[in-house]
């Protein structure tokens, strides 16, 4: 079985699965349990200056569920560590002694003045931790004080804090980015300019879960009111993947290793992040929803996947999908796909038909020769993949590419073998000549 040993920034861990800085990494008790379960490393819950913050004594979390009660989205208003700094330092020190082969990263959040960094960074490094992660992400609580996401949204602040952290430490520094931003490349560039050794992303997304239908307040509340929180869990993975891929495919930022965060729940999610440019992944929500033993499937599944692909290490997977990501305008408009429904698998639920009929191109029948039957009308099908997305039966509907020379019944023209995209399209006023 493939060796999952990871060497992220020269920090060795037995596998690329770390726990992100959050409640699961709050105390030595939690971290011990995590390491006993087999996690490769942890990023300790963010520490700040004393006196420490306090959390609400009421709901901090809420979830969004899919069919059968599965938590697919998660919201939290948890703040950074609410324990004295020294308590955290003592525990980090002990932890590193007890678990020398695992990665322990200290997550830090300090205001924008150099003295604070100068004072705290060496203190924390003295515990023996393997690296720092600068938290520029909390979208609630800390951001109201000009820290967390408030800093993460201003590239100049990121650069300065990164420089200071690098100045006062000798171990690697990871910069954790917030997604609550217009263009992730700006803060990523700031991290590069500040001398960061790596970036980790994403932190959580500004969100409000829903409303309480009895009281007509927001949900959840502590007493009569609530505040927005950070969204995370399975639902945010696509947002994270896009940002990871952007950083990985942009020359100015692509040299920087990435730690991928955002909804990693099973081994396939890890493959998504790694293939799109991350060198390791961090997990939080899934551990909170299911417990630390989800690491079993992460390790076993990833290892078997690498075997199947003929890869002997995680490094061989990192970034392999990045070349496939391009700007929309470069997509080949001459490529033609059509949907095909496997009538043996079809259970006649009709979901494909109504999706297509109501909202797409009216390319799926609901009756054929007087019988309830769902077939693709090629003349109308544009290959949009909506039917595939809504069909409840795996591999019942598939997209099939038309070969060059084959007739596209919709355009009544044969498929061209040439690549042609928007950049040269006659409808494009900015087209290249």
């Amino acid at each position, binding site marked *: 079985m493939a060796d999952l040993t990871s060497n992220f920034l020269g920090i060795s861990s037995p596998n690329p699965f770390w726990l992100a800085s959050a409640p699961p990494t709050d105390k030595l008790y939690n971290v011990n349990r995590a390491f006993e379960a087999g996690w490769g490393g942890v990023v300790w819950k963010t520490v700040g200056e004393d006196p420490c913050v306090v959390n609400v004594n009421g709901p901090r979390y809420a979830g969004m569920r899919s069919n059968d009660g599965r938590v697919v989205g998660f919201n939290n208003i948890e703040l950074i560590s609410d324990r004295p700094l020294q308590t955290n330092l003592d525990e980090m020190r002990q932890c590193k002694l007890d678990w020398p082969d695992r990665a322990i990263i200290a997550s830090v959040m300090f205001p924008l003045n150099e003295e604070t960094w100068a004072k705290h960074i060496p203190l924390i490094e003295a515990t023996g931790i393997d690296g720092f992660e600068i938290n520029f992400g909390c979208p609630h609580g800390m951001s109201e004080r000009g820290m967390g996401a408030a800093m993460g949204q201003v590239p100049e602040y990121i650069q300065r804090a990164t420089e200071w952290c690098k100045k006062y430490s000798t171990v690697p520094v990871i910069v954790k980015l917030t997604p609550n931003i217009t263009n992730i490349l700006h803060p990523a560039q700031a991290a590069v300019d500040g001398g960061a050794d790596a970036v980790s992303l994403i932190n959580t997304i500004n969100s409000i879960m829903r409303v309480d239908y009895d009281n007509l307040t927001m949900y959840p509340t502590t007493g009569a009111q609530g505040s927005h929180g950070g969204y995370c869990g399975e639902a945010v993975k696509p947002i994270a993947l896009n940002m990871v891929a952007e950083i990985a495919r942009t020359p100015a930022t692509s040299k920087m290793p990435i730690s991928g965060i955002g909804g990693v729940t099973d*081994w*396939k999610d890890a493959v998504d992040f790694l293939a799109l440019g991350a060198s390791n992944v961090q997990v939080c929500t899934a551990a909170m929803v*299911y*417990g630390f033993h989800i690491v079993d499937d992460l390790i*076993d*599944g990833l290892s*078997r996947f690498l075997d199947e692909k003929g890869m002997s290490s995680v490094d061989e997977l990192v970034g392999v999908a990045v070349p496939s990501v391009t700007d929309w305008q470069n997509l080949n408009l001459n490529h033609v796909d059509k949907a095909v429904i496997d009538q043996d698998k079809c259970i006649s639920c009709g979901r494909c038909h109504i999706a297509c009929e109501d909202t797409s191109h009216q390319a799926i029948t609901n009756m054929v020769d007087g019988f309830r039957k769902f077939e693709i009308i090629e003349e109308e099908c544009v290959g949009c993949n909506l039917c595939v997305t809504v069909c409840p*039966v*795996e591999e019942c509907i598939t997209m099939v590419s038309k070969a060059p020379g084959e007739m596209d019944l919709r355009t009544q023209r044969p498929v061209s073998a040439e690549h042609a995209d928007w950049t040269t399209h006659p409808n494009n006023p900015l087209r290249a000549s």
Partner: protein
Amino acid sequence: MDTQNTPDLNLDPALSGKLNATQIRTNFVEMAEPLTANQAHIEADRCYFCYDAPCTIACPTDINIPEFIRRIKTGNTSGSAEKILEQNIMGAMCSRVCPTEELCEQACVRNDHEEMPVKIGLLQRFATEKAVNENIQYFKRGQETGKRIAVIGAGPAGLSCAHGLAREGHQVTILEKRPKAGGLNEYGIAAYKALNEIAQKEVAYILEIGGIEIQHGVTLGEDITLAKLEEDFDAVFIGVGLGDVNSLRVENESAVGVSDAVRYIEALRQSEDPSLLPVAEHVVVIGGGMTAVDIAVQSRKLGAEKVSLVYRREQSQMGASEHEQEYAQINGVTILDSLSPQSLLLDEGAVTGVRFQHTQTDADGKLSLLDAYTDIPADIVFKAIGQKLLTNDLSGASEEIEMQYGKIKVDADRRTSVSKLWAGGDCVAGGNDLTVSAVQDGKVAAQSINAFLKQSH
């Protein structure tokens, strides 16, 4: 016409088959359809991934059920199979024969919710099918230790023990009296539960690890003694099962037409053409456990018109699970309870029926006979009232082996009172006669033997 009405079945020589091969094939279709990949994913989604899962606690072999189901869900079927087989090397067969409705599925928390437990048995079958059919191995033989262990009986207990020992690098010799390995998996489990040669495939799968040889045609007590094995080997595991059946204790029990259910089931399992097996119009099965249900159902599937399963206590006390009883009734078996066989009705030495005496079970479970009788006509009477250990096999040990309730007494490590002898499976006291328990016995004994061998150099 060629016949399989062999003398050992003790049936009227005039009896022959009633159905043709096509009808037999239709009738013997599998009891449970396997899940498709799509169905497996939908079903796996229903598992809540419990902490300290009740289903795992209920499993005699301690399979980490939530994790194996999770791996089906995440598309890691191969990893799912490994999770199962590392705790139960016969996970494939067990998934077909385990009374899950009384074990894991009964414990499932979704019973509380909506009385619909996760289909753990079918999911386990889905995960292990590919591994066993395609011989995907997960375990390697350890470094050769030079130690040799004799295992008596190539049934689930013996095979499980052998595999566990081979993993540790020991050399195992299995002594089996029958021509094929597998024990009851091969010779006993109903044909509609173990189709397509799965029992033999599983045996081959287990032997693939290496370090295990099977010698067939070796019978304990006849060809070899325990004392000799104790001399020649470093340890011995006894997995002989129950080689004898309980008697009805009525007069003329050996009259023609009174047949041993276990023997008939064996004949059916080994038959190349079941349409040639002797079948009668009126069949009475005496008993209340899985064997009784198996012979009753299979008699119906072979074409018997009227099959009655007669149990001497109340139906709720039957050993066969409710699920099994239901399956019998769906297949046209009539279940009669509180009737105890009093005598056989004979005509010229052959059985024509059974006279049953009515019974009553009081609140304390005490059985009493009433002064009332019912005669049920029968051309065949199947005895399915339990099996017992052939104890004279065990008399040849270096010292006397301590017994309990007619079976071998063992401690938590499955060790007997004799220092080099371990035992497991149906021949051991205090068990529940399940395949899965036999596998656990073999596994635990292997661990104990291995520890013992490591100490003695």
